[in-house]
């Protein structure tokens, strides 16, 4: 199995604040790699560093064996990394159709096929095709955001806390969607919802205080009570 994304001893500053103080992380092809940790541990910042929104000041960020540390955000996206941020990043005054359209980098058959695929996955989006993004429900926004990230031929999709604020039944839908998407792409998932993370995740990386403290296979973590208690406050 190939390593798609590799972070090695990554440090990130936001202003004068030293947020990431040594992140090590690997995401494999075809897997769901989960970033776990408490609030404020640095999970979102890790995703933003990968995307180039908060660039790393030290360490290595490699995507498909090429360094992307110095790449501006749009270039990172163009290399094939999709991003589903914590607040979904829906363009509120644009319709669902326009949100999808603006995300499309090419309007070829492959892309349109992917659009059809993703609309089958999220039928609500088809229903509200002409509705303004700002008028969608929380769950629908989440789906739109994921659909947008998927529509280009993304090799890797970064998803930040998709279950936040959603009703359990909607969370299930999101989980199903991620499992479906995993068939065609790879996913890095940040989640505080351990139930969800443990069910769909393949590997985990535990982050605390901006540092990687533990990583491994998800099925091993499920039974590791001590780690769960210490770093996630569970159990």
């Amino acid at each position, binding site marked *: 199995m190939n390593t798609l994304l590799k972070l090695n001893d990554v440090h990130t500053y936001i202003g004068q604040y030293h947020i990431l103080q040594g992140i090590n992380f690997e995401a494999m092809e075809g897997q769901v790699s989960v970033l776990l940790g408490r609030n404020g541990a640095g999970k979102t910042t890790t995703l933003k560093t990968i995307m180039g929104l908060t660039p790393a000041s030290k360490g290595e960020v490699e995507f498909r064996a090429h360094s992307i540390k110095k790449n501006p955000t*749009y270039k990172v996206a163009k290399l094939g990394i999709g*991003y589903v941020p914590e607040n979904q990043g829906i363009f509120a005054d644009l319709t669902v159709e326009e949100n999808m359209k603006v*995300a499309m980098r090419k309007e070829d058959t492959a892309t349109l096929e992917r659009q059809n695929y993703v609309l089958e996955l999220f039928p609500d989006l088809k229903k509200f095709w002409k509705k303004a993004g700002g008028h969608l429900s929380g769950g629908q926004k989440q789906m739109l955001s994921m659909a947008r990230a998927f529509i280009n031929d993304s090799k890797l999709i970064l998803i930040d806390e998709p279950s936040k604020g959603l009703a359990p039944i909607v969370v299930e839908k999101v989980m199903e969607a991620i499992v479906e998407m995993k068939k065609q792409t790879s996913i890095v998932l940040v989640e505080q919802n351990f139930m969800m993370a443990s069910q769909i995740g393949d590997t985990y990386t535990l982050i605390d205080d901006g540092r990687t403290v533990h990583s491994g296979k998800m099925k091993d973590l499920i039974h590791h009570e001590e780690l769960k208690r210490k770093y996630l406050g569970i159990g």
Partner: protein
Amino acid sequence: MESDKGGCTFLELLVNLVINGLATGMLIFLLAAGLTLIFGLMDVLNFAHGGLFVWGAYAGIFTYMFTESFLIGIVGAIVTGALLGLITEKLIITPVYGNHIQQILITLGLMLVLQEMIKVAFGPNGVAVKTPSYLAGSWEIGDVIIIKYRLFIIVVGFIIFGIFQYTLKKTKVGLIVRAGVQDKEMAQALGIHIKQVFLYVFMVGAALAALSGMLMAPYSGVIYAEMGMEYAILGFIVVVIGGMGSFSGSLLAAILVGLAGSFMAYYVPVLSLAVNMILMAIVLIFRPQGLFAMRKERST
């Protein structure tokens, strides 16, 4: 009214004031449209916009005088505006991008330099401008006399508005700009090279300002260095009232401001600038994001 306007009927007066107001409004709209797009997309308030206006006027008018063609003059103004916009964005805006205070300070400095350069080149006194013959004069419709040039401005304004609305709503480019105005970061995360979009929008905004200056010239009959700052102030007022980043908002607000100014100038001339200030103050108190805003106002 009849006695002091020498036989002018009320209808004629009304029509004239409305056309006057609309014409002025259109000119301010062209100026404000660029300003509001630039602000909406880039979070930059271009205090040098007035400088682009006055350079457009001078470049356009002198091209017109040199080539004897008003149309070529207009083209000259637009090209000058776009070029100046390019230089400004690369040399002045980009180095201080992200720092609001520096941006405000530096664009004002540029405004100053642009204004003074006009004075160096053309002297501190104004230059008289003639309206091209085919646009000069007026039509008589019944009892009412309509000045041709003003109608011309109104038509041009609406055409440009139409073109822009179409571009914004129906083309991919317009879509990208609208998305960028909403959320720059997300647009980048979708692979859009937002900095390049900035440059184009800035150039377009600058070209619009220059066009406005050029069209204003025959309307007012004279061009002078300070006119940039004077009209820029009206542009800012319109942007505030219409809402930062709202293209259609700036049209409606500009018409409002133009009409208000026109009517005030006739009835209570002393108050004509004041009435727009008051409008602006009212909007700021009750609806600070503007009447037609596209974004939630952040206070920083």
